[in-house]
C-alpha cells in the first residue's frame, strides 16, 4: 500500500516537475550545441553562457527593469480582468446590448494594437499610463469572449432546475450561471496572460523609458545581442510564472472543473 502511494507520489513529481525541467534543459542544450556546431557569431545568436554572462554583468538592473514591466503587466491585466468580466456580464445579461456592442468590440479587437501605440503616446504622453492602457487593450478581449461563452453555456437541466424553483434572474445568475462560467473565465485569463506581457513590451518598445522592452530597444542601439537575449529570457520566465500562477488560482477556486471535463 505504502509502496503504491510512494510510487504514485514519485510519478507525480516526475510528471509535474522533472519532465518540464528536463524539457527546458534539452532545449537549452540544443541551442548551445547549434551555436557551437555552426560557429554562429554571438552578435547574431549568442550561446547560453553569453546570455548568462550578460545577465550577470548587471543583474540588479535587469531585475528592476523586469519588475517595472511586471508591474505594468499586473496592473493592466488586473484592469483587463475586471473590465472584461463586467463587460461579459452585461453582454450576457442583455441580448440587445450584446447585439449592439459585440460587432464594435470585435472591430476594436481587430485593430492592430501596435498601430494605436503612437496615438496613446499623443494622448497620454510618456510614463506608465500608455503602457498599461496597451496591456489592457491587448488582453481584455479573450477574457470577454470566454467569459461570455461560459455564461451562456449553462446546461439545460440546470436552467430548468432554477426555473422549477422559481429562482429570480439574479439568483439564477449568481448561484448557477456565474459559477458554471468560472472554468471558461480561467481559459480566457490563461490566454490573456501572455498577451498582457506582449502589450507591455509593445508599449515599451514604441515609447522606451524603462522595462524590458526598453532594454531590448537599448541593446539594439549598442549592438549588444546577448543583453537582448537576456531580456527575452526574463520576459519568457515572467510569462511562464504568470501563466502557472493563474493556473494555481484556478485549481484552488474551481477544483471541480477537471472532474467535469473528464
Amino acid at each position, binding site marked *: 500500500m505504502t509502496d503504491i502511494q510512494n510510487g504514485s507520489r514519485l510519478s507525480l513529481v516526475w510528471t509535474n516537475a522533472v519532465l518540464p525541467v528536463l524539457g527546458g534543459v534539452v532545449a537549452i542544450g540544443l541551442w548551445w550545441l547549434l551555436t557551437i556546431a555552426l560557429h554562429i557569431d554571438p552578435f547574431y545568436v549568442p550561446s547560453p553562457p553569453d546570455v548568462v554572462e550578460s545577465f550577470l554583468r548587471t543583474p540588479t538592473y535587469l531585475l528592476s527593469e523586469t519588475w517595472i514591466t511586471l508591474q505594468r503587466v499586473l496592473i493592466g491585466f488586473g484592469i483587463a480582468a475586471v473590465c472584461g468580466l463586467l463587460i461579459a456580464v452585461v453582454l450576457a445579461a442583455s441580448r440587445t446590448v450584446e447585439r449592439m456592442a459585440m460587432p464594435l468590440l470585435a472591430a476594436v479587437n481587430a485593430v492592430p494594437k501596435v498601430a494605436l501605440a503612437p496615438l496613446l503616446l499623443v494622448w497620454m504622453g510618456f510614463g506608465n499610463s500608455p503602457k498599461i492602457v496597451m496591456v489592457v487593450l491587448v488582453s481584455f478581449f479573450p477574457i470577454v469572449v470566454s467569459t461570455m461563452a461560459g455564461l451562456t453555456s449553462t446546461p439545460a437541466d440546470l436552467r430548468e432546475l432554477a426555473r422549477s424553483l422559481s429562482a429570480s434572474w439574479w439568483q439564477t445568475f449568481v448561484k448557477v450561471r456565474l459559477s458554471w462560467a*468560472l472554468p471558461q473565465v480561467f481559459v480566457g485569463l490563461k490566454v490573456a496572460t501572455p498577451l498582457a506581457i506582449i502589450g507591455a513590451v509593445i508599449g515599451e518598445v514604441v515609447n522606451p523609458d524603462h522595462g524590458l522592452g526598453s532594454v531590448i530597444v537599448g541593446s539594439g542601439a549598442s549592438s549588444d545581442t546577448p543583453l537582448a537575449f537576456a531580456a527575452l529570457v526574463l520576459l519568457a520566465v515572467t510569462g511562464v510564472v504568470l501563466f502557472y500562477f493563474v493556473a494555481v488560482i484556478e485549481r484552488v477556486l474551481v477544483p471541480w472543473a477537471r472532474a467535469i471535463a473528464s
Partner: protein
Amino acid sequence: MITVSAASRTFKGKSGRVEALKDINLTVGDGEFMAVIGRSGCGKSTLLRMIAGLIKPTGGEVSIAGARVLAPRRDVAMVFQRPALLPWRSVQDNVLLPVEIFRWRRSQHYERAQQLLEMTGLAGFRKRLPHELSGGMQQRVSLCRALIQNPKVMLMDEPFSALDALTREELAVELQRIHMELGTTIVFVTHSIQEAVLLADRVAVLSARPGRLRQIVKIDIPRPRSFGHNAHLEQVADASAELHQLLLTEEHLPNTPPATRV
C-alpha cells in the same frame, strides 16, 4: 390533488406545428402514486412540465390543490432524468439549494437536510462534491433536494432511466418506501413497465403523436411491493402483460386514419 382537464400542447417546430399532447384528462388523488408510461416522443415529459408550470398548455388547464397552475409552485418539486446537481456545491449544499432560493432560514432546514441524507444512506457523504459520487448516489441527492421543499406533489421525469439496472431497482424500492412514509402525491414518468408496476397505484398509458391518454390501468397489488419473488407474482404478471399489450399495439383512434400515423 392534481386535475388536468382537456389539456393540449402544440409546439411550433421548423417543419410546422407539432401536436405533442391532445385533450388530456387526468385526475391524481391526494397521496396517490401515478405513473405515466408511453413510448419515447409521446409527450409524457411535456405533460409533466405542464403540471410543473414550466410550460403552459395551449388548450385546457392544469390545477393543483384547486388552484390553476400558471407558474412553478414551491410545494411542487421536480426530479429530472439527470441529477442536475451544481458541481461546485457539496452534497449538503446541493440539498439546501431550494432553501436558499426560497429565502427560507437555512438553520431551520439544516436538521431536515441531515435527516433526508440519512434516510437515503448519504449521511457519510454530505461534504463530498457531486462528481465524487456514483450516478445512483447523485440521483439520491437530487431526490433529497426535492424532498427538502416539503412538497405536496413530486414530479419525476424518468428519474432512474440513466442508471444501471440494479441501481434502478434499488432506487425504485427506496422511492416506494419514501412514498409510503411521507404520503407525497407523485407523478412518475417512465418507459419501464416494471417500474410502473412496482411503484404506481395507477398507470396512465399515453399513445404517441399526438399524445393522448389511452387508458388508465389500476395496479391493485398490496404494498410494500418488491422485485423478484413475492406473493403476488400472478398479479404483477397480469398488470405487466396488460401494459405491454397497450404499449405495443397501436390503437386505431377513430379520427386518425391509419395511413397518416407515423
